């Protein structure tokens, strides 16, 4: 068993939360994007987390990784705005299925998880430093 494995666990969590933060940021940025390469308005994305085994013996320890980024297939918001360049014949515009409040909440959750992993990292570091001091006076 290696004391530095725990640092890997924290690092994987930081990486995963950062990726989640990127996805949230792109959802927020595209809250009004009505044209995409695939046609139609932007669809919000979401990350899928899965445990990542970093050590098997003597007991399994898990980091975390982003295994997939999926599109949210919930329906688009429609508003009535005949002046909009992407309005249909009736004057309705389909806007992305991004809910800003939901994204804000996800962002705060992600940030808290990130903070917790930074705290873990610091505690691990201080434990290792303390061990290195062993026997020194």
């Amino acid at each position: 068993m290696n004391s530095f494995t725990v640092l890997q666990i924290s690092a994987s969590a930081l990486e995963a939360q950062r990726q989640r933060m990127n996805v949230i940021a792109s959802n927020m940025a595209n809250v009004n994007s009505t044209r995409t390469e695939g046609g139609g308005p932007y669809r919000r994305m979401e990350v899928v987390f899965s445990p990542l085994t970093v050590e098997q013996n003597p007991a399994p320890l898990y980091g975390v990784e982003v295994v997939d980024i999926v599109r949210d297939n919930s329906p688009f918001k429609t508003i009535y705005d005949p002046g909009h360049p992407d309005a249909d014949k009736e004057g309705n515009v389909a806007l992305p299925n991004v809910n800003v409040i939901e994204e804000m909440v996800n962002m705060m959750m992600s940030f808290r998880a990130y903070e917790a992993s930074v705290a873990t990292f610091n505690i691990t570091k201080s434990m290792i430093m303390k061990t290195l001091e062993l026997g020194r006076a």
Partner: protein
Amino acid sequence: MNEGFAALERLLFLASKRHGVIASNIANADTPDYKAKDIKFDDVLEDEAIAVRVTHPSHIVQKDGVRGVGIVIETMQPWKDKNNVELDMEVAKMTENALLFQAGITMLTAKMRMFRNALRR
């Protein structure tokens, strides 16, 4: 006289193992279907406290001081995504565990100082 070293070593091993388990929980605080895990010190240490008291030569002594670490799965009420990690609880547990680890290191240092003082006389 040397049992203290063995006990402290065991304490440090278990504390660092538990640290890893709690770090896994914190890393997977948002992973669907993940269940929080923990190492219950009471069970492991109590058993070992009994194991070190050898009062008769025919008693079986466990050669391996460190036994298989008993990881238990927590049974807290899961969230909607079937994950039952409570982030603040885990951070509190981790702080407590790190303090225990530091206490172990401090005691080990004190014990070494004792020996060094005895040798100096």
